[in-house]
């Protein structure tokens, strides 16, 4: 049954892509769907772009393992989208065309900023794609019984197909389809779970508390055993990383005006808040109550079949049977496709628009050449991600994803927020500060327990701190401030003078 729904999802998304391909002729069509997407539709697409399998599967597993502390993962997007709505969307739509770099380039020197932003976007997108593909491979292996490497090939091939053939329009429709399916699926899962307890929350929580593996009530804080630094570092890196995620930022260029951009951020915020609350208040507790310790979902070793990441899927089976399990498995698969398509498009835009068309060819490029380069770049990225996905099999994806967010939080986010709000930012400060943030984030990630021990096989990490992102964020902001304040070059004077383009305009 799961395979049938899986094939249905693939068929529908391929149909969407062929339909979108006929409407994708220019660079504007490819990158931003010519700004024709409505505010509400774009909001759903943003939600579809953001809500990954980490939210549906990983957070349910975190609630089962660590209880209440999953709030740090769940709360961060609310802050990130609030920052986007209240502080950034107007400027994104007003000054941006294809990538968030357009906003910084409106007042800073174009070439160095584009080169830096393209590199940071590529690193972020490649790492995040790798994380998503590793998760997808493992998930599809468990859900559909397909070998891991074959699953990775299927996901990356579909990802290349959607983006290279259908561009932003196909990606948008795949994301909207996924968002609608996900909201319906999660609502049904929550209602069916509550129905098992006659819609009595007290009964649900009584069993969940008694069944929680820590021995404490499921909603008791402190299960992750984080230090104050780790908690702040994790939370802030997720907030700033999401607010600086290139695949989310570029969605604000697909709407016709700033009002629609604000509206789309608000719709996305509503959808994300709804999904979060369903998972936190019902599905997490339901999984603990109905799946944990249930022998029907245990393997021969007595642990959960497929690992704890499968708790939400097992819950779907427990409350809705084989058919509902098949539907939820297909929705989880659609979730992965939508996220990887959005990330690929962001990486391709950085490569072709920022690096190739503007930094290398200095704008002397035809639309046809740019489109051809974009499609070639999509195939190249697909192959690279496929290789990385197979090489990183078995890594802890939820943890790696939080580390990747440190890159967005210490490069794109400071560049964007300071470009918009701080007159003193100079090109030199932005590039040196951003590079400091990027190098610090990558170094801390490589020297930490996930890669130094987990991938390289060393016995001890060089950096003990499990969530070091705050160091990179402070380094990036600090360096941008100090270098900009000390910068007395003619370019710095021009950068400060051109800050006037950031002042509010009445026509938006």
């Amino acid at each position, binding site marked *: 049954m799961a395979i049938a729904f899986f094939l249905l999802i693939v068929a529908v998304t391929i149909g969407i892509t062929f339909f979108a391909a006929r409407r994708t002729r220019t660079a504007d069509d490819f990158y931003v769907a010519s700004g024709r997407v409505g505010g509400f539709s774009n909001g759903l697409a943003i939600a579809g772009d953001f809500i990954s399998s980490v939210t549906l599967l990983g957070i349910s597993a975190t609630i089962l393992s660590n209880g209440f502390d999953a709030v740090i993962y769940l709360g961060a997007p*609310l802050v990130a989208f609030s920052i986007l709505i209240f502080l950034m969307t107007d400027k994104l739509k007003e000054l941006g065309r294809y990538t968030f770099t357009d906003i910084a380039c409106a007042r800073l020197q174009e070439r160095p900023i584009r080169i830096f932003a393209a590199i940071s976007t590529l690193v972020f997108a490649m790492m995040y794609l790798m994380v998503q593909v590793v998760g997808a491979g493992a998930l599809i292996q468990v859900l559909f019984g397909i070998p891991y490497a074959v699953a990775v090939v299927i996901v990356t091939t579909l990802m290349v197909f959607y983006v290279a053939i259908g561009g932003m329009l196909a990606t948008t429709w795949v994301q909207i389809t996924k968002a609608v399916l996900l909201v319906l699926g999660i609502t049904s899962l929550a209602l069916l779970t509550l129905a098992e307890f006659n819609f009595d929350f007290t009964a649900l929580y009584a069993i969940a508390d008694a069944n929680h593996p820590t021995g404490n009530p499921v*909603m008791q*804080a402190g299960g992750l055993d984080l230090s104050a630094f780790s908690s702040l570092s994790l939370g802030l890196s997720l907030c700033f990383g999401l607010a600086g995620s290139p695949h989310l930022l570029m969605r604000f260029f697909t709407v016709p005006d700033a009002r629609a951009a604000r509206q789309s951020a*608000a719709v996305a915020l509503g959808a994300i808040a709804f999904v979060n*609350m369903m998972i936190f208040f019902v599905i997490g507790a339901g999984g603990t109550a109905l799946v944990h310790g249930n022998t029907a979902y245990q393997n021969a070793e007595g642990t959960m079949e497929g690992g704890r990441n499968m708790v939400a899927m097992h819950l779907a089976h427990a409350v809705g049977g084989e058919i509902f399990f098949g539907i939820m498995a297909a929705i989880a698969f659609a979730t992965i496709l939508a996220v990887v398509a959005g990330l690929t498009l962001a990486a391709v835009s950085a490569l072709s628009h920022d690096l190739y068309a503007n930094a290398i060819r200095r704008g002397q490029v035809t639309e046809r050449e740019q489109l051809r380069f974009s499609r070639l770049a999509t195939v190249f990225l697909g192959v690279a991600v496929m290789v990385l996905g197979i090489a990183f099999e078995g890594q802890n994806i939820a943890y790696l994803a939080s580390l990747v967010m440190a890159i967005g939080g210490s490069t794109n986010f400071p560049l964007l927020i300071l470009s918009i709000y701080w007159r003193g930012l100079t090109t030199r400060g932005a590039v040196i500060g951003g590079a400091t943030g990027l190098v610090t984030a990558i170094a801390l990630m490589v020297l930490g327990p996930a890669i130094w021990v987990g991938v390289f096989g060393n016995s001890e990490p060089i950096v003990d701190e499990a969530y070091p992102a705050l160091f990179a964020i402070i380094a990036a902001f600090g360096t941008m401030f100090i270098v900009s304040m000390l910068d007395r070059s003619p370019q710095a004077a021009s950068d400060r003078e051109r800050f006037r383009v950031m002042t509010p305009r009445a026509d938006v």
Partner: protein
Amino acid sequence: MLPWLYSLFVLALFLVLMTGVPIFPEALSKPVAGIFNLGMVVFALLHTVPLALAWLHLKQRDAQKKD
């Protein structure tokens, strides 16, 4: 200044959770009403207040545009 105040208010709610989890988990776990403890109430506020503020913000920006 209002957009900054809205953003800082939402960030402050999240800060209560980020600092509460490691520093005062017992306080967050205190029952408030029915199954809800203090942490769950803050979590619910974090998921509803931004929506209300976003709605207010959209209204204010629309009014500014008309002026």
